[in-house]
């Protein structure tokens, strides 16, 4: 994989695509362009937004209206009480707190580990840091499936000799493995490698400690990459299902995803749909607020 990224990269539109800007002025071409534009818009909106719209609308219907044939496009009498019920009677409020707690911790751990490791690999370069970086990158190429079962075994009993520590039912079971993320370290190191060396040198000459350099020189310039890592960490943590299901068997500690799956088939469909809408709010809001960083992050991964 060629992973190319230049900190000055932007997701700006290129001057043109395959379509000729000149030819577009001809009436025939314009008609063709607008036909494709309209058809494409309709298709994309129906295919990608349609299911989400149906979820939102369904969560506002009464059970009777939900079963109406033909279905109504907008609820005749919006049942906002569905949300009230899901929030208060289905443990959704508590599991929302859990989700946010796990997501926040996951973001902090991932950023902390990636920044300190990348700073050392990029600037301090202690002995053996090169082979260590290779060992970290190797984990990217190991299919996730091989570590899934043994990682669970690690959670049941940490492989620290002479101890009997279990991380089952502990938020650490979500945070710590999330911190061992080679891709984060790779992205941040790459970003650090391209920051202007002169600033760091002059800070060194002024007698700044490495901690001061990291905190006052490197981090202020690194907001873009920190935003990318944080938003991916947040969305990943707030949508996780399988791992949370395994390591958090205590229902009181489970995040939204696990609770939604547990409620499925157990409660009235309209309540379930309302719970699903609520469960979607954290990642969707994170996405909408940090959309630019996500698009840029994907360009950064830059498979070209």
């Amino acid at each position: 994989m060629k992973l190319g990224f230049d900190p000055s990269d932007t997701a700006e539109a290129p001057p043109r695509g395959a379509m000729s800007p000149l030819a577009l002025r001809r009436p025939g071409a314009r008609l063709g362009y607008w036909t494709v534009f309209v058809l494409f818009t309709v298709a994309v909106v129906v295919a990608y937004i349609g299911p989400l719209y149906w979820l939102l609308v369904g969560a506002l219907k009464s059970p009777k209206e939900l079963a109406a044939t033909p279905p109504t496009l907008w609820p005749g009498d919006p049942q906002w009480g569905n949300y009230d019920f899901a929030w208060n009677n289905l443990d959704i409020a508590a599991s929302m707190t859990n989700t946010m707690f796990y997501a926040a911790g996951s973001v902090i751990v991932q950023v902390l580990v990636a920044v300190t490791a990348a700073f050392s690999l990029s600037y301090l370069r202690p002995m053996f840091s090169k082979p260590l970086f290779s060992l970290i990158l190797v984990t990217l190429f190991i299919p996730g499936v091989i570590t899934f079962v043994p990682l669970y075994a690690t959670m049941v009993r940490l492989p620290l000799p002479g101890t009997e520590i279990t991380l089952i039912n502990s938020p650490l079971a979500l945070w710590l493995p999330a911190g061992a993320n080679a891709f984060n370290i790779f992205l941040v190191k790459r970003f650090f490698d391209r920051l202007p060396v002169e600033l760091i040198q002059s800070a060194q000459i002024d007698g700044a400690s490495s901690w001061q350099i990291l905190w006052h020189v490197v981090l202020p310039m690194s907001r873009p990459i920190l935003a990318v890592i944080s938003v991916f960490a947040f969305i990943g943590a707030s949508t996780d299902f399988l791992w949370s299901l395994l390591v958090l068997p205590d229902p009181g500690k489970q995040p939204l995803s696990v609770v939604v799956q547990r409620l499925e088939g157990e409660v009235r469909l309209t309540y379930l749909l309302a719970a699903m809408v609520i469960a979607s709010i954290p990642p969707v809001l994170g996405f909408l607020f940090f959309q630019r960083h996500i698009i840029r992050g994907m360009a950064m991964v830059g498979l070209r």
Partner: protein
Amino acid sequence: MKATLLGTRPRTAPGSRRANDGPSGPPGRLLRVRRSVPGWCYLAPAIGLFALFGWYPIFRGIQMAFQEDNLIDPPRWIGLENFRHMLTDPLLAVAWRNTIMWTLLSLLFGFAIPIFVALIINELRRGRGFFQMTVFLPSVLPPVVAVVLWKWFYDPDPDVGLFNQALGLFGLPAMQWLDSATMAMPSLVMQSVWAGSGGTALFYLAALQSIPGELYEAAEVDGAGFFRRVWHVTFPQLRYVMLVLFILDVVGSMQVFVQPYIMTGGGPGDATTTVLLLIFRYAFQYNDFGTAAALSLILAVVLAVLSAVYLRLTRKWAT
């Protein structure tokens, strides 16, 4: 951490420290070790986490495959017994067949759609931001929500499931979707294409936007029409991304879990039991972590070999 870290003396540039180290030999090496200490301190969190949760599980996974382990009693070495046990399971062949079927269907439905979507978004003169957001939105939903949502759409009751309601509007008979052995797998695949294609499209879009406009202008001067420009300029430029995303798609598809786990539980019958579902059952239903690890190991080896062969075969087209 205090000021002694890397400020002991000014450096000319990061990485040029070695040049300042003076004569090598015991005193120089001691100095280097001492000056490496702060760097190691910064790496300590990463080393600790990777040791426990990155490197150790790989080793443990290989070890477990040759042990009897229920995570309660101490593990016991049993040689190839786990593999033998696994091979006697009639579900194994079914699970592999289903996994390969899933992968082929995913490629069939899912590979071309993101390219097509990205191509059109890239040609549009307006609304790119809107389309990027729209197609990516399903990828942001919690997978559980996306899967449960579609499970509802697939409900066989013509008064409940959206798809059967839609068929009803056109006077068509209701279909069984997830309850039919033949339709269950394609239904799951459609859900996964819906949830995943937008994210993939954004990768293609990033690649498309890096194609220099001059290439199109040159082709235009040479008299190439729109479709020939797409064929002779756009596709060759996308080739590398396509090759990489293809194998990532295959590797990801072979590890499918959430869709069958939530929507069908592997059924009807065993029609959607995949390899990962089988691993999950060995481990978390039968407490047979050894056999689960053995099957994981085999799947991982298959994926590694597949990727290696693929990369070798495609190397000469990739550049």
